[in-house]
């Protein structure tokens, strides 16, 4: 065990926070007076149980809503934010949506973060004509259905973005994508990376791991056997670290170029990876780096400091949840106050969002009337360095055939 690994876990995070979080939060109308009117019901669903915790997005959304409620609310009316936990169980996801939509009659769903909820509930959202402004999406259904729009990118753009950087900067000729054998996650996103490589006249391949397998070594050997010069890791953080540990064991750090999608952009990752990967691992960040600064980035931390539990995560999903909540509030404040309890009117207002911008994302946020939504498809590349991350390429737009219909959508809205 090296000295490096013994560093206290929170020290890096603390250093980051200390430099930015000083300003007072600004939320909604920013009146400083608590809202007292009849509450507006809004729902949120996250997954938090044994395999993982996706609750950072709803926690940040709740902090923002609390802040809005303490600052005049929506024309004097507070937001009542009802958060459900699907516990990674599709049945509980359906139950949660039924509770929120049918029993509580919420007007919108904001800040969702889950692996299963979106796939199960997408048809219900459409049927009930409600919009879900999600924040931590991972499956294809989340980006390819009419009534869900997510602030984060999900594995597909992030993987394509990572591959694009490594192709453009490191002269990659052949890349292999390491994903999960879950069709709407691994096959979907790794397939798009292969599509990107082909569109550039290069070679792409996929190695898909069964998450039930304890053995990542065989997957690594399979990846090596493809003859690629670059390995793009597209796995949940825990599995990705196991995979990279196996690669370290084989001493492959220098014989390949390495990139990863967003899951590895997490504060505890540099410590968990160790010094071996210093300067070797290039990671795509879906939203802008936490320490980049800017009015929204500063406000995000200030809101969390003031309204979230002390130990709440301050990560990408948290940024994303904050932003979803903020865009939602901005939309409500522009609506006719008489229609705030009308779900159809709120849905129409959300679908009318065009071109919100923030320093937390690289591109504009929009919704529009469409059967797919992926507003966020530009990101930042960072590299693991000295126990933290260092930005190597600021905001860049991803370029892949997959995004063609989305670009067409943006042109129609006058955004591109």
């Amino acid at each position, binding site marked *: 065990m090296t000295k490096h690994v013994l560093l206290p876990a929170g020290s890096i995070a603390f250093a980051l926070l200390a430099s930015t979080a000083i300003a007072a939060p600004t939320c909604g109308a920013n009146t400083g007076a608590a809202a007292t009117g009849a509450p507006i019901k809004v729902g949120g669903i996250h997954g938090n149980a044994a395999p993982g915790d996706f609750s950072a997005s709803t926690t940040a959304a709740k902090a923002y809503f609390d802040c809005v409620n303490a600052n005049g609310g929506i024309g004097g009316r507070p937001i009542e934010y009802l958060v459900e936990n699907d516990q990674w169980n599709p049945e509980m996801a359906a139950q949660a949506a039924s509770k929120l939509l049918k029993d509580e009659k919420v007007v919108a769903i904001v800040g969702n973060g889950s692996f299963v909820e979106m796939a199960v509930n997408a048809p219900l959202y459409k049927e009930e004509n409600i919009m879900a402004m999600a924040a931590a999406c991972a499956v294809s259904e989340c980006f390819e259905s009419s009534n869900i729009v997510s602030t984060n990118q999900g594995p597909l753009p992030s993987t394509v973005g990572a591959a694009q950087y490594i192709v453009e900067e490191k002269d990659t000729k052949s890349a292999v994508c390491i994903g999960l054998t879950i069709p709407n996650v691994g096959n979907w996103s790794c397939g798009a990376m292969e599509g990107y490589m082909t569109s550039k006249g290069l070679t792409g391949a996929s190695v898909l791991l069964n998450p039930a*397998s304890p053995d990542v070594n*065989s997957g690594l050997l*399979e990846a090596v056997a493809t003859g690629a010069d670059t390995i793009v890791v597209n796995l949940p953080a825990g599995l990705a*670290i196991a995979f990279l*540990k196996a690669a370290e064991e084989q001493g492959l750090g220098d014989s390949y170029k390495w990139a990863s999608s967003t899951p590895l952009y997490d504060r505890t990752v540099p410590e*968990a990876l160790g010094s071996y990967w210093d300067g070797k691992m290039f990671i795509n960040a879906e939203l802008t780096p936490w320490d980049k600064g800017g009015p929204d980035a500063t406000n995000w931390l200030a809101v969390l400091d003031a309204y979230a539990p002390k130990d709440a995560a301050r990560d990408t999903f948290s940024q994303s949840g904050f932003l979803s909540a903020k865009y939602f509030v901005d939309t409500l404040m522009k609506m006719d106050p008489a229609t705030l309890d009308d779900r159809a009117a709120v849905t129409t207002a959300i679908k009318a969002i065009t071109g919100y911008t923030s320093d937390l994302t690289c591109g504009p946020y929009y919704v529009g009337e469409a059967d797919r939504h992926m507003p966020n498809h530009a990101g930042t590349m960072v590299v693991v360095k000295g126990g933290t991350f260092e930005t190597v390429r600021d905001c860049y737009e991803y370029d892949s055939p997959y995004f063609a219909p989305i670009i067409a959508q943006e042109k129609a809205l006058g955004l591109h």
Partner: protein
Amino acid sequence: MRALLISLALWGVTCLVLAVGLGWGKPAQVVGMFVVSGLAVGSLYALGGLGLVVLFRATGVLNLAAGAIGMSGVMIAWQLVEWGIPAPLSWIAGILFSSALATGYGRSIAPRMAWREPVVKAVASLGFALILLGLASFLWSDDPRKFELPTDKAAVMILGLRVTVTRLLVVLIALAAVVLISVALQRTRLGLQMRALANDRRLAALIGVPVVRVETMAWALSGVLFGFAGLMFGDLVRLQPAVITFLVVPCIAAAIAGRLQSLPDVLIGGLAMGVIESLLTLSDMFKSIRPVAPFVIAALVLIAMNRGRRLTFAGED
């Protein structure tokens, strides 16, 4: 000894046939790498299986909480290292904690369901696994973690694959455990008593075997084995409570390879399962479902082991 050689030959031939069949037309070095990689995984299955068999022989309990007990040990060890406790002390503390958990369950809870049949005892131990998993997930938030041993850094080349000393250590310790425990069962008084219990519990109690003491020793020993397996799972698989907890299922497959009786067969069978699982990567058809290998093999072993048997009279299971 003869039985041992037969099973060694049987498993060896199976692996060889698969290696040749699946690796046909591929460079021998590639196949060799998959074999070595598979041995590394198989030794983990075997290690977990050993603890299960030691406990089952002496107490008649198939402990589905084995994974959870090992997981608790490695989480404790990781936490102590994070708090700055010297690493070797932390590892020992983790293993002792696992042993204490197993012994605690064996002394306080298991006797209360002694009247249940073996299946129900096994299934009920899942309750203990859920308690440990729930507590671990509650105490340690979902952050990526890594558990490391100094032996991870040193490695030797075997058939073109770098094998870390940790992986060698797993195989060696599993082998040492098999030899030591087998000798102890043959040569010591406690071993004799354990064998008596394994043969016929009621008769053993009648002739004065101190059942409680022998069982407690078995729980403690199995806890040490689970604890060590937990550390290795945390280091070589990944340090995630849910993953380590449910690794008990393939470990049961390895235990079945030893018919829940024979320690050497658990080791050989477990290693073979790992090799076969790894070799399936060479097949395009099976590579996405290669973790089924231990389960399919274990089911076949169970069926083969009971071939020709007829259930004529209802009896003890």
